[in-house]
């Protein structure tokens, strides 16, 4: 096919899933089993997706470590961890459906570690409790050593090979296509290997594009975590939710950013300052080093600000696990040892690991309901469903993590809502059709791609990206305030202005990695902007959003989601769901660990 100077091919599937990580592959598995024609479009071979990097485990009340465990306790912990802006209907769904989805993974062959009785091994993680916070620390995180994400992603890919899912690997999705009747009708993309542009028509799209940790300079995430689906949604003037909420993991490897799983502390490790003192008990007497991640990250920053940081620059703390002994470390935390030795030249069997809070997870994302259907807000402030458009996993905000995600809940989120979206699509798409797509629709969806292909000179993507990452790091970090964020927003606008003049130097077709980096950067930039405006707007401290100028949580005004629209940088509010179906509401309480 040809349109002006653009050549492209056309394909058709019933359902297109963009992203081949844990959530995308769980959804595709569900859909391909039903007989619908489903394709996964992934910019990397699926097992290279960021899910592979998850270490510690998948949190779920399968009652293995404790036969009396109850999903309602898990729900309580998650609601509390979210600082009460997690939607309680979604959290209820995740925690109650969780056990079945974990058992399914085991049946598919996931090589979980085991207890002596043969059941799945579970370890303690941060923010976990028994009996609604009254029964002490729980051990609820199901693990395959410290490689749970790897094991989960490979298992799901393998299961998809078995069911015969279609894969378009190393294809880059550019934009969603909505036709003239306003229906979701396709996606524009290109084959990275050949540069061939393709319009894929479909009846439903699932955005499973993952997080966008690359907006920050220091992050634990893969280089591919550029929030492409979020960029697509913003360009369709659909909103993003709670984009001020970024999780800084307490233990990113100092100087490198690699994740040191919370499982290190779950297995008995703890943090020490330059005086060699274990400091967490001073801040969280009960949960100590296993307080919630936002809490531990702030404590580390406070230790550093008080001059008790380690190293020449006194800018990090130490994670001590050597007392666990060589056998426990090599059995339960082998990958941690490997990463620490490779990147920090520290063997944790001998010495403590240097760590610092590092951007790790995007709690915010594309707002959806429990079926994964994307939601927007009409002019009267009411929710409205975007038919045919779904989002799941880190890209989505369903919202089970609210203002702070608990460790091990992200893998559960992936499989529970990947499966839910798959089931919903299977029910909804009993009849499929060939959607109408006009030439204007196609041209619109290829606009950016064509624009960058025609640039003659201008700014280079590497410089712009590092400036943006630097601004986000310095102005929208663990602690925030109005003046700082206003200055950061101004600087960001400057970079945004200059980015209009971005120049693609390499115009080749085959495996043009600069083209991909430019498109990814433009997505990141929109996400950074969403974060800046949402963070300025939320005038309170809640979960990961800690403001020096508004140090307290303000339930009267802010027990709600923020919604950001690209058009005019508008931020509005959306109600939090406080009505679970089968249990009583967990009412907001002060969060003490």
């Amino acid at each position, binding site marked *: 096919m040809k349109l002006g100077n653009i050549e492209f091919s056309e394909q058709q599937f019933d359902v297109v899933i963009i992203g081949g990580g844990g959530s995308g592959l769980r959804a595709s598995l569900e859909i391909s089993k039903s007989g619908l024609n489903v394709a996964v479009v992934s910019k*990397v*071979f699926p*097992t*290279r*997706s*960021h899910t*592979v*990097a998850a270490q510690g485990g998948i949190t779920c009340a*399968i009652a293995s470590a404790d036969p009396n465990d109850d999903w309602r306790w898990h729900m309580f912990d998650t609601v509390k961890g979210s600082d009460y802006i997690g939607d309680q209907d979604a959290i209820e769904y995740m925690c109650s459906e969780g*056990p*079945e989805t*974990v*058992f399914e993974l*085991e*049946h*598919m*062959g996931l*090589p*979980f*570690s*085991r*207890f*002596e*009785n*043969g*059941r799945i091994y579970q370890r303690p993680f941060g923010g976990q409790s028994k009996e609604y916070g009254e029964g002490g620390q729980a051990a609820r995180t199901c693990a*395959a050593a410290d*490689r749970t994400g*790897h*094991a989960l992603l*490979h298992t799901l890919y*393998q*299961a998809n*090979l078995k069911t015969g899912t279609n894969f378009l690997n190393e294809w880059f999705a550019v934009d969603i296509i909505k036709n003239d009747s306003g229906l979701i009708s396709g996606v524009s993309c290109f084959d990275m*290997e050949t540069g061939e542009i393709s319009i894929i028509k479909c009846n439903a799209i699932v955005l499973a594009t993952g997080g966008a940790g690359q907006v920050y300079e220091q992050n634990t995430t*893969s*280089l*591919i975590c550029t929030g492409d689906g979020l960029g697509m949604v913003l360009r369709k003037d659909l909103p993003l939710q709670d984009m001020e909420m970024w999780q800084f993991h307490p233990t990113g490897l100092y*100087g*490198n950013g*690699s994740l040191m799983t919370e499982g290190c502390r779950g297995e008995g490790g703890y943090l020490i300052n330059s005086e060699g003192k274990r400091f967490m008990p001073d801040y969280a007497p009960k949960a100590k080093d296993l307080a919630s991640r936002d809490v531990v990250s702030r404590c580390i920053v406070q230790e550093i600000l008080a001059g008790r940081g380690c190293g020449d620059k006194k800018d990090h703390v130490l994670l001590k696990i050597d007392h666990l002994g060589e056998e426990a470390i090599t059995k339960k935390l082998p*990958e941690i040892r*490997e*990463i620490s030795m*490779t*990147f*920090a*030249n520290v063997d944790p069997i001998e010495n403590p690991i240097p760590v610092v809070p590092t951007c790790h997870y995007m709690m915010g994302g594309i707002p959806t309901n429990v079926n994964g259907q994307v939601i927007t807000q009409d002019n009267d402030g009411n929710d409205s469903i975007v038919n045919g458009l779904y989002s799941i996993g880190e890209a989505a905000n369903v919202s089970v993590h609210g203002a702070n995600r608990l460790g091990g809940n992200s893998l559960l989120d992936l499989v529970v809502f990947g499966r839910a979206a798959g089931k919903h699509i299977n029910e909804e798409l009993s009849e499929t059709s060939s959607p109408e797509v006009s030439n204007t629709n196609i041209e619109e969806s290829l606009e950016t791609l064509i624009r960058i292909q025609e640039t003659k000179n201008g700014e*280079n*993507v*590497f410089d712009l990206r590092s400036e943006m990452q630097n601004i986000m790091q310095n102005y929208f970090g663990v602690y925030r305030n109005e003046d700082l964020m206003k200055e950061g927003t101004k600087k960001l606008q400057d970079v945004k202005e200059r980015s209009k003049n971005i120049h693609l*130097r*390499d115009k*080749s*077709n*085959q*495996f*043009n*990695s*600069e083209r991909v980096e430019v498109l990814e950067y433009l997505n990141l930039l929109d996400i950074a902007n969403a974060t800046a405006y949402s963070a300025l707007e939320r005038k309170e401290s809640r979960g990961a959003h800690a403001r020096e100028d508004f140090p307290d949580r303000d339930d009267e005004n802010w027990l709600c989601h923020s919604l950001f629209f690209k058009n005019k940088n508008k931020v509005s509010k959306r109600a939090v769901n406080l009505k679970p179906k089968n249990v009583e509401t967990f009412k907001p309480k002060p969060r003490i660990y």
Partner: protein
Amino acid sequence: MTDKLKLSLYRFDPEKDKRPYMSDYEIPYSSSGNMMVIDAIRKAQELDSTITFRRSCAQGVCGSDGVNMNGQNGLACITPVSKVMTVNRLEVRPLPGLPVIKDLIVDMKPFYDQYEKVKPFLDNDDEVKTGHERLQSPKDREKLDGLYECVLCACCSTSCPSFWWNPEKFVGPAALLQAYRFIADTRDKQKRMRLKKLNDAFSVYRCHGIMNCTSVCPKGLNPSKAINEIKKELRKTG
């Protein structure tokens, strides 16, 4: 101490080059730092944005950036420059034995085809009670250690002369490791079928115990041992 690294990269652009060539880049390098090969390649990319290679996690778990560094296969993201360079010089080439598409990017299809051929998924149609996992003793689970951790980077298979010669018929160390991962899994019910499918002159028996696979595996796995285990099983079943 700040110094310069001479990074020599294999270049080939199928749209304009008749044949590949090596191109040198000067990269600032400090011997006191901990620069990985991926960092050096990314620095070169800032100088010349047409340089192409695959990368994702940058911490050795996704398996994207398998390359050949001064003659040795490995993952660029977890290989310190200091470990592979000789007198401040480092040559990076695509993995050997697979067709080069562009620069450091090889066509992984022959590799993935072998992986799919061994049916790398648990096969067990026995009824399982919903609401329960299958039980597996820690001892049985331990049999999977050293097998399931493979990241499919292809460093092993592309360092194997037998795979270079017969990439279509010899399954290769990576896929054989996966084959054994399922043969060894007490939850799998297709052990006999799996072995039967491997029982020909090429699939397994082209392995001549050269053990390049084991010496290059960036995850410290031992495909050679897994292949020997398969051979043992094959002898047992005849």
